[in-house]
């Protein structure tokens, strides 16, 4: 599942339009959560500031828990040096707590990366360094770190102003995100494709466990043996077939199963 978190509706609207049709699945405590009809994309509008973002992200992940293939994005506008530019954030500094967080930057998205500093007030005095400023990123990153690995979330920020007190209207914010929506959704697809890689042997252990009358610990041992067989290119199914033909399987009881598991292990390793 793809999760998008935006502070305000005008930032979220281009995402809602992109993944439309979407249903409003929750609207409570200032948090709106939309889900696409295929159940694959979620857009959450948190409200402004760290508290709102932390609350919204935690509520969303509790209501719709992420799995191994899920990834999350904080999409929004920020203050920065080059208005109109889209960045992927490589360092999140919380200016209140001093804490620094680092999402992994592993995939070739073509985006320039940049540090973002999260503050608790609007920046009016102008920005003199090539860094970004916003009011939610550190909260988003903090919550993500508790639910997923650092390779599974990203902060995608479009610079709206130079932090000099100029007014950014809702329409301007929507346009800024809209102008970059293709790159934002393409980046999300790259993360999704990378994270979809569930690179683990996939088989149903239950029928084999039954054959050996397995206890929980015997099932664990059996799984380890089958994983080894798969890794080493050994035909474990054929081996089980042979043991069935020899009337060694199915095992008549747990004691018998234990013995047969030892036999299976021996044959798997040494034949």
């Amino acid at each position, binding site marked *: 599942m793809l999760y998008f978190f935006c502070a305000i509706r005008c930032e979220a609207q281009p995402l809602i339009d992109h993944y439309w049709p979407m249903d409003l699945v929750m609207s409570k405590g200032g948090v709106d959560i939309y889900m696409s009809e295929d159940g694959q994309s979620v857009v959450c509008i948190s409200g402004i500031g760290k508290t709102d973002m932390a609350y919204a992200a935690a509520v969303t992940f509790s209501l719709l828990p992420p799995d191994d293939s899920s990834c999350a994005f904080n999409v929004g506008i920020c203050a920065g040096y080059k208005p109109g530019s889209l960045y992927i954030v*490589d360092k999140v500094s919380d200016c209140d707590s001093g804490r620094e967080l680092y999402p992994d930057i592993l995939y070739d998205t073509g985006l320039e990366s940049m540090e973002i500093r999260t503050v608790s007030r609007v920046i009016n005095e102008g920005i003199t360094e090539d860094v970004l400023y916003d009011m939610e990123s550190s909260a988003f990153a903090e919550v993500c770190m508790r639910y997923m690995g650092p390779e599974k979330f990203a902060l995608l920020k479009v610079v709206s102003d130079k932090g000099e007190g100029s007014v950014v209207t809702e329409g301007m914010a929507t346009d800024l995100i809209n102008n970059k929506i293709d790159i934002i959704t393409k980046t999300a697809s790259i993360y999704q494709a990378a994270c979809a890689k569930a690179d683990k042997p996939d088989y149903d252990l239950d029928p084999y466990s039954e054959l050996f009358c397995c206890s929980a610990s015997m099932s664990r041992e059996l799984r*380890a043996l089958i994983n080894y067989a798969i890794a080493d290119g050994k035909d474990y199914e054929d081996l089980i077939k042979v043991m069935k033909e020899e009337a060694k399987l199915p095992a008549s009881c747990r004691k018998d199963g234990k013995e047969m598991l030892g036999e299976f292990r021996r044959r798997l390793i040494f034949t």
Partner: protein
Amino acid sequence: MSSADVSFLRNFDRIYIEKDAVDYPLTSKILEHFKSAKLTYIRHYKDIFNRSRQSFEFQSHSRKIILAVNRGKLVYEGAPVCHNYGNDRFFYTSTVLNCPYDCEYCFLKGRYSTANIVIFVNVEDYIAKASELGECYLSVSFDTDLPAMDHITAISSVWAELAQEHPEITIEIRTKSAPKSFIALPNLVYAFTLSPQEIIDRFEHGTAGLEARLRSLRLALSKGCKVRVCVDPIIYIDNWKELYGRMIDRLIAECDVDKINDYGIGAFRISSEYIKAIRRAEAYSAAVQFPFENRDGYCEYPYELTKAMVDYVRDRIREVADDGKIFCQY
């Protein structure tokens, strides 16, 4: 789009630097090698290296370097499972955490759960600490393959200098690479880990091939260096005997074995603390998915198998070396 379409950023496209590490000479030297890398300044290497829920699997496609200052312990006492080669006082030290190579069975995958590499740039502090150890045996390529990083760091030569100045300290530099420069000293041991080419191809990704390792070993011997040959870990696969036998045939035929100082032999074994993480990172590796037996906190092959493999290699080495030169796992 499928996962096959995802392109990862190249290795070392980004370097994280602790603010305290900026002014060290080694930092400048390393940055010279990575002129186009993006630099990210950090407060403490653990903020990156020790993050929770990292994925070795993902990060191994796009590794990053972290330059840091080690403010903690610099030298450790060796674990009982390590060969001590007859030395009572065995220590190890890690100026680099993690390895640029990717051996499927590497214990570092269990120890660190990240593919990123930390280089401690305050090497002088390590040298100062090691100088105080007195008579001892010090392994300096422990949590990494130090020579594999030498084109970037040249840290091996710093340890060689220490060996030169402190004859009471025997330094071991162990590698699966094929170094080309050596310093001949009686208390500096170059330890070459040899594996059959089939094992290298299947499990020791990125390391030097057997041919290159043997060439490097010959060069070290010709320069009069103290050379150790490690057939450790021996990895079990169906035709292990044939493969290790052929490799030893080559060693005997191609190298001046009389000049080899000693041999280390051991079958694969790993702390049971690490095996879960390694298996997660290497779901399709027969080397780590093997159904090991847990003996005293270590995952090992069944005793008979360990014994058969170690005995076989020892017997073959005995053809050219006395028992006093052979150090075995048991």
